């Protein structure tokens, strides 16, 4: 049975789009049929991160309004056969996204795919609530930083009240994806620790994605990080997170503290 996942956060710039692309690619690499859906109307970026920006013909709003058929708007990934993208509209305003139309599109996507992964816009307005509306699973992307944690708490409240599942009195599966985690700064006490964030938000941990230049490089090239650099630390973290989404039990690995060149030469850890 298809699962609809929303990747959400409240706060902007925490890594939702990066994570949507990476988790979508990771699931598809494992043979699942995946579609990643961009809900960020007016500010779409998932197409860029996926490297499909030159191939967008029709978008979510064209489909919602009946100007294009769903299959005409879906873009098949050139690298992974089982991965598709449904882009957001860059030109229309957000009000063009109608709840009934979105419900129809999601229902149709459920028929075609194993996973429907919705990249939410920042904020708690229409775009964000529509993106979470039909979700079975929520991936709450949070940075270890006060305003991000607070906004995540707010989003968790919305997930428990404004989603279809919540309204039916059912549970929505919520997972925390701690992104842009800098182990060195956390060890120095400059950043909230994993345990701190978990204790405050009290939802299960899906993964810890380290802050890494591999992410920037991958988005420059338009390749999900899991494809671009299979050996990198964020790739390993995303692959493990995807396995957990599929229901596997995977031991959590904590990002290790990077050792600086000097301390390596001296044979010591940068942070004791």
């Amino acid at each position, binding site marked *: 049975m298809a699962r609809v996942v929303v990747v959400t956060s409240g706060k902007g710039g925490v890594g939702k789009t990066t994570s949507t692309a990476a988790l979508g690619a990771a699931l598809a690499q494992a043979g699942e049929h995946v579609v990643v859906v961009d809900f960020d109307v007016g500010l779409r970026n998932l197409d860029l991160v996926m490297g499909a920006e*030159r*191939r967008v*013909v*029709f978008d979510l709003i*064209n489909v919602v309004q009946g*100007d*294009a058929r769903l299959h005409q708007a879906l873009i098949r990934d050139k690298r992974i056969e089982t991965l598709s993208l449904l882009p957001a509209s860059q*030109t229309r305003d957000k009000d063009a996204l109608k709840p009934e139309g979105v419900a129809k599109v999601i229902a149709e996507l459920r028929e075609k795919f194993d996973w429907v992964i919705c990249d939410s816009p920042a904020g708690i307005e229409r775009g964000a609530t529509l993106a979470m509306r039909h979700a079975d699973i929520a991936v709450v992307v949070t940075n270890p930083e006060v305003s991000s944690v607070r906004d995540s708490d707010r989003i968790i409240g919305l997930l428990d009240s404004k989603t279809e599942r919540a309204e039916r009195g059912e549970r929505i599966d919520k997972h925390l994806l701690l992104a842009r985690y800098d182990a060195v700064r956390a060890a120095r006490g400059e950043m909230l620790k994993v345990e701190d964030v978990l204790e405050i938000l009290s939802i299960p941990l899906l993964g810890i994605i380290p802050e890494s230049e591999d992410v920037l490089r991958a988005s*420059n*090239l338009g390749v999900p990080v899991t494809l671009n650099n299979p050996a990198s630390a964020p790739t390993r973290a995303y692959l493990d997170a995807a396995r957990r989404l599929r229901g596997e039990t995977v031991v959590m690995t904590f990002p290790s503290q990077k050792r600086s060149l000097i301390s390596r030469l001296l044979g010591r850890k940068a942070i004791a």
Partner: protein
Amino acid sequence: MNLFSFFRRRRSAPVARERLQVLLSHERGNGGDSELLAVLRDEILRVISAHLTIDDDKVQVKLERGQAVSLLEIDIEVPGRLDQQIRKRRRPAGPPLLPAPST
């Protein structure tokens, strides 16, 4: 970090720059090309469906935007043999779909 990753590191920003230039040159002005593409698809399909029975579900529109040229591809899947599909002069009366060739 090995030599390979060193060179790869230096290469990603120019790629990003080139991708953005192509994308933005298409996105600027006229607010993008999606409206035009819908019109093109509809008109092309209208002309073709005067002669062939086409199923909306079997029509795929593909595009690859480039700096100098773009490639627009419309794939129409027609079942069976093409000659069996041709609707011989069964087009309903009405204004011609294409202007009469000038002589």
